[in-house]
């Protein structure tokens, strides 16, 4: 099969397992103009990471669109405040762009404080705030002092990189905030859980496992977290990182700054979940924890395996394509599809890193197409050529998939069912079955829309 594309420049972003390309594979760089990239911006990366902090105010310093499109962007669940589900904007207008928006920003913070008295406000910089050169840091500092609260600037001007740069900006803001509090004495069997945003209760599922293993979870970054829980982060002995793309940076900084080691984990699929739990238990090297962990894995596997086997009977031999945000998630999804007897034939990510792509190539089957920053036209081309029956992706990919008559798995921000842990593995299998074996495909697989 040829990897020739309409946009020759894009060929550097694509490889096929088993073929030796002379050219180097490129990832984590700017999108090709006009390629219809699926990527978002720096601001959006920062917003999705910080948004679940539930008693924080999220104030976007920019024109209205930035706040409109990200209002309640994640389906994150909260056990406390619902303040995070609002979207505040300084709503910059033409005159603000000309004369500067600092004064308006400052007034916005005043109004927010008067109405909600929050302890924590994140102020996001957008493209326009960056270009007109508003000194957001200074405004935040002044307001912090005025109200004796934490007003944290997030340096997320949209054009200074892609979503990954936004993750980093969010992590820097979190770090700046946490550095403000006294460093706590480490509790021996305690943990921070990074890179879970509690979509449909996922962080609660994993927290439940860790508690059953005899571990205490101090802080989750950032699912179901709040101002008080962020303060406790430095008391932990270990950081575990689920969403590697967004949180590895913070974990590394925690290691440097607070001497807390970290490990990458994955709770997608039975295999990864069990391995990750064992890895965590091994870190603490505590007999009781290890025993409890094995017991948990055994119990949960016994519960989940038969259900997954049942679905596998119907799904074996189907082919899947993956297009998700990060490389680590793609790797887990490959394994998860395999648990269902499904071969992955196309793997793409928006923001995968070099080492992740190496791992993907290592575990992928011969002939699998691997592509960075794919666009709809490439996804379409390779799904057709490779005969994919299912695509796992986000909202924009869903409709492409459906229009092509291909089943679809939602791996987006606002899904309403958890995909983490053993419970998530069951949900995943069930969702794959629901879409791949739906009777609707009977009416479209023969190719044409005709009455007779």
């Amino acid at each position, binding site marked *: 099969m040829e990897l020739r594309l309409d*946009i020759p420049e894009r060929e550097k972003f694509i490889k096929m397992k088993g073929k030796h390309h002379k050219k180097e594979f490129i990832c984590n760089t*700017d*999108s*090709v*103009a*006009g*390629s*219809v*990239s*699926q*990527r*978002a*911006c720096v601001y*959006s990366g920062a917003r999705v990471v910080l948004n679940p902090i539930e008693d924080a105010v999220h*104030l976007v310093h*920019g*024109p*209205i*669109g*930035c*706040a*409109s*499109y*990200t*209002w309640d962007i994640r389906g994150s669940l909260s056990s406390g405040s619902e303040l995070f589900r*609002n*979207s*505040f*904007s*300084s*709503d910059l*207008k*033409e005159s603000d*762009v000309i004369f500067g928006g600092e004064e308006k920003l400052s*007034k*916005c913070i005043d*109004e*927010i404080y008067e109405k909600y008295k929050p302890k924590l406000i994140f102020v996001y910089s957008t*493209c*326009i705030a960056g*270009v*007109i050169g508003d000194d957001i840091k200074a405004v935040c500092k002044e307001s912090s002092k005025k109200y004796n609260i934490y007003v944290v600037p997030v340096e997320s001007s*949209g*054009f200074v*990189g*892609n979503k990954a740069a936004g993750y980093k900006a969010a992590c820097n803001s979190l770090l700046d905030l946490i550095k403000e509090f006294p460093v706590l004495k480490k509790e021996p069997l305690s943990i921070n859980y990074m890179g879970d945003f509690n979509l449909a209760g996922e962080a609660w599922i994993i927290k439940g496992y860790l508690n059953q293993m005899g571990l205490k979870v101090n802080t989750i970054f950032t699912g179901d977290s709040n101002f008080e829980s962020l303060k406790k982060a430095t008391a932990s002995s270990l950081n575990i990182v689920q969403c590697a793309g967004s949180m590895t940076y913070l974990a590394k900084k925690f290691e440097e700054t607070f001497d807390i080691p970290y490990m990458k984990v994955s709770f997608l699929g039975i295999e990864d979940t069990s391995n990750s739990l064992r890895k965590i238990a091994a870190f603490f090297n505590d007999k009781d924890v290890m025993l409890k962990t094995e017991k948990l894995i055994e119990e949960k596997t016994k519960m989940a395996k038969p259900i997954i086997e049942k679905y596998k009977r119907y799904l074996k031999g189907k082919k899947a394509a993956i297009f998700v945000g990060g490389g680590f998630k793609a790797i887990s999804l490959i394994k998860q599809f395999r648990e269902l007897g499904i071969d992955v034939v196309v793997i793409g990510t928006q923001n995968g890193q070099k080492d992740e792509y190496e791992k993907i190539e290592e575990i992928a089957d011969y002939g699998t197409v691997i592509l960075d920053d794919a*666009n*709809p*036209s490439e996804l*379409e081309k390779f799904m057709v050529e490779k005969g994919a029956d299912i695509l796992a992706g986000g*909202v*924009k990919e869903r*409709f*492409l998939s459906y*229009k*092509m*008559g291909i089943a679809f798995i939602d791996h987006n921000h606002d899904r309403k069912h958890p995909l983490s842990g053993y419970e998530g593995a069951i949900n995943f299998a069930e969702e794959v079955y629901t879409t791949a074996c739906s009777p609707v495909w009977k009416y*479209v697989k023969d190719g*044409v*829309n005709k009455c007779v």
Partner: protein
Amino acid sequence: MYETYKSVNENPCNMCMPLGGIIAFRGIEKSMVLLHGSQGCATYMRRHIAEHYHEPIDVASSSLNEKGTVYGGEKNLIKALDNVIRVYNPNCIGILTTCLAETIGEDIDRIKSEYKTSRNISIPIITAPTPGYGGTHSEGFVKTSYRIVEELSTDKERHDRINVIVPNISTADLREIKRLLELMKIPYILFPDYSDTLDSPFNFPYKKIPDGGTKISDIMSMGGSIATIEIGINYEETPGKYLQDRFDVPLYKVPIPIGLRNTDAFLKLLKEITGNPIPKSIEMERGRLIDGMIDSHKYNFVGRCTIFGDPEMVYSVFTTCMENGIHPLLIATGSKTQKLKELIASEDNPLNDDITIVDETDFSHILKLSEEKEVNIAIGPSDGKYLTEKGGIPLVRLGFPILDRVGGQRILSVGYTGTLNLLDRITNTLLENKYKTYRKDMYEKYYKVI
């Protein structure tokens, strides 16, 4: 009337200009849109539009990075145009600017002209300045429609069709307007017609640019039409105005034909312009609407309503509520509009003792006012779910965007049939809410007191 000024926008009730522009461009046959700005704008607007229409929405971006922002984005824009042509082979390209491109002062018209000459390109490339801070999605839609007509309508040779220019209404509404025109045997040019491109039938093989849309040759000849009927109430600088000024095409403006009065006005106008009679079958639809209005009039009288969304939609929903004895207490829009206020104030109306109109507003304000006025039903796009979640106010979903239900893009509300459809949805929401609690309410009110 009630006005408060504040700086912060808490839960926006509108989106930004380029989003409306994208939808307008989808109404041209075989067209492709390119946003000149940073990557995120295209991605977020695509997601928003895709979730409403449940369709793939391919929008290219010039993907401006830091370098492009500092030194100018010309190179990016040129490369983007090359790639869009390579992959999509469109018959027309729209370039919309974003906040970023406008703020750094990109001269897209010059870049476009030089590009067309240097590449020897004959397809139209239409630019529209749509900075996000310049207005709402609703203004972006009209402004872009204006630019398209201004650029393409050059032919003034007279013909027997009429121009029908629409605002951002549903795909089912567009199809209904076409059906009514066809029933009246009126040759027409509907613009922008995204009824097929944004609600395309399932068919193999997949097409990167879906079939449908107003033909470019039709847009070119809009200057030779008998008349222009422009639907919507809000804007001065409109494509219809352009056609009138430039080609002397008589311009008639009507509200979106939702509601008895507005639909009557639309059909009467069609009849007056063309001399064609209104057929019996349409009159029967009108009779059915009135029959339905009678059936539900008592239930509707308890309705205390908040109406929000795009100004032109809000106005027609307002008059429909008035016709049916539903009390519109709060009229709200994220756009800035003096016209809407004037129109509503000019209504002679016995129910009109406590109507508040707010423009350039947000949902926190809408909720606060709705609660003060003890509103019991809201009508508007699905972000109004905030009113349901926070204030327990049931929502009848209508307009753009509807992100949390299927079928939002094909809700029919125009014409007599569409109006009855909308009215039934409103009445049934009121009934559902009443029956949900009436046993408890009566118990609390009468039994407990005794």
